[in-house]
């Protein structure tokens, strides 16, 4: 099974012919992802990387049957691109774009309410189901197929966790980068739920960072509903309050969104929390062994 994307997903790229879109679409095709085309307004009817280009997402969906879209369009137009994808009936929208204005995302998120579309991101590395589909910018070779699902706010820290999980002999079912912005389409909790319900996932790595309460919300759900072991890590124990650490959402606003506070809640909810990001993989292996 796996979640969100698989070998049958038909994927289009919004912002297909731009430099980012071109580079990453090429990498996705090389990985073996079923990329069926792309959208760049004004370039419809042409071919790019051997795939058809369309003027609108609606047309792309009509012609290719696409159900997944990945967005590389610049920040000023990205919220519009998200809404266009949802309007055209795309089921999974992966927004890679970094730097979308918050007021734009408030409107886009509201627009998605009641639509049959799931947004991942923005400002995220994307989603990968190893050996089936890479819908993102992550280095595909790090993610070997296996039974561990990963949910993470951060890009390179996701790669780090995946690498450790693979080196511990486990491998990845699906890795979901949810993004580090204040407004994101899919929360930690929603991503964890998907993986809990996935028969191919046996354990979950949940990686968060300072700011917000997404991890606490997910932890509380896991406490009552979790059926699989979860290993957790929160980055930013050493980050000072009130200073933004890179991601727009990574700022300590109150006593509840520090790394220490989140880790405490996660532990109380039965999550195996690691203090060191260097032992995520080995801890997952030990936890699974303990269960066997």
């Amino acid at each position: 099974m796996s979640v969100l994307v698989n070998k049958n997903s038909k994927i289009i790229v919004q912002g297909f012919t731009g430099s980012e879109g071109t580079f990453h679409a090429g990498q996705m095709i090389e990985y073996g992802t079923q990329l069926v085309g792309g959208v760049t307004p004004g370039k419809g009817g042409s071919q790019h990387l051997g795939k058809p280009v369309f003027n609108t997402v609606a047309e792309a969906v009509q012609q290719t049957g696409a159900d997944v879209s990945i967005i590389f369009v610049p920040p000023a137009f990205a919220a519009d691109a998200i809404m266009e994808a949802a309007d055209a009936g795309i089921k999974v929208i992966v927004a890679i774009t970094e730097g979308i204005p918050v007021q734009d995302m408030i409107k886009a998120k509201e627009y998605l309410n009641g639509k049959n579309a799931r947004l991942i991101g923005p400002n995220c590395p994307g989603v990968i189901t190893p050996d089936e589909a890479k819908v993102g910018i992550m280095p595909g070779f790090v993610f070997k197929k296996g039974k561990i699902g990963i949910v993470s706010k951060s890009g390179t820290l996701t790669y780090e966790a995946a690498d450790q999980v693979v080196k511990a002999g486990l491998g990845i079912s699906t890795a979901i980068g949810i993004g580090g912005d204040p407004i994101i389409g899919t929360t930690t909790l929603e991503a964890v739920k998907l993986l809990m319900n996935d028969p191919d996932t046996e354990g979950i790595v949940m990686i968060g960072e300072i700011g917000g309460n997404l991890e606490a919300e997910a932890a509380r759900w896991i406490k009552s509903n979790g059926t699989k072991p979860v290993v957790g890590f929160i980055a930013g124990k050493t980050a000072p309050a009130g200073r933004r650490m890179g991601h727009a959402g990574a700022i300590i606003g109150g006593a509840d969104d520090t790394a220490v506070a989140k880790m405490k809640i996660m532990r109380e909810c039965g999550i195996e929390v690691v203090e060191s990001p260097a032992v995520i993989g080995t801890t997952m292996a030990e936890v699974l062994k303990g269960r066997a």
Partner: protein
Amino acid sequence: MNIHEYQAKDILKKYGVAVQEGILAHTPEEAVAAAKKMQELTGTSWWVVKAQVHAGGRGKGGGIKLAKSLDDVARISGEILGMTLVTPQTGAEGKFVRKVMIAQDVYEPGPEEIKEFYVSILLNRQTGRNTVMYTTEGGMDIETVAHNTPEKIFNEEIDPRVGLQAFQARKIAYNLGLTGEANKGMVKFINALYKAYEGIDASMFEINPVLKTSQGKIMAVDAKVNLDENGLYRHPEIYALRDTDEEDPTEVEAGAHNLNYVKLDGNIGCMVNGAGLAMATMDIIKLAGGDPANFLDVGGTADAARVEEAFRIILRDPNVKAILVNIFGGIVRCDRVAQGIVDAYKNIGEIKVPIIVRLQGTNAKEAKQIIDDSGLLVKSAILLQEAADKVKEVLA
């Protein structure tokens, strides 16, 4: 991005928000002239001298004082200008005061009781909507109110499809206990404030206090405005208000090179690609017995020039005893980063502190070879745990 009180008030006024008026001054002479002008314009007979720095709690640090005569204005501005203002928000090092606002005194007694309220507008991350947060307990820390009397804090959430509605502004005014002209004034105040918040792509407005004067007028006495940096491209006139004097000079320089740098107090510098991994690396340093000297995200395209600039910035901090470079190469090839490190090392000249380089991902083995063969004072690692152990060795 943050802006000063006087800049925030200028913006609010443009949107029709009533504010305590004031004039900016850089010297005591300018301050006296400003005070005279304020008297002409508003009829005020006393003045408030307000330090203009990017920090809250200015009053507590002695940065806001009442002047009852022009002599007072000269003397007090002389004291405040050039002082290093320490407030609960500045940290012990404080903020150097370069300018003051000479504001009208709005607390003159009169027919009605004077009241202070608190109003802020911000994003509720849980709902993904803007919300107006307000309380009758103005003039004090909102954190204190939230802790002691949480029941006195109200929230009015804004539906993004229709924006702030008239009934919501009325509800706020009634919940604040206002009647008559003051009630109408508050409705107008809230409407204008919300328009300004959306209009400039703000990420937070905090008006504390919002004052009801003895004449029943509603106005913003202070204004804290934070802007959404992602929205600044739409507002070049607001971006122009950026005051780099208020920022750490090294952080400003790092930003000019597209490096995301935050100075911290520790002894181990670090250079990492990606914000989450950078924070995780800081945590690893702490676990290894050190303290992170900085947060530094070199971004997704860590080329040789950027790596070199990052080294220069980290090395400027005299507390740095060692540097940990942690790069997870995805699209970026580790061997190129390694070559960048070797080149930077040679270009900078003598680097006296040990450097631990951990390169993982694409071409990690080749990268380690380049580092090991360079003959430099560099310890290389591939696993994150190895890097942590090497930090421990350096500190031992």
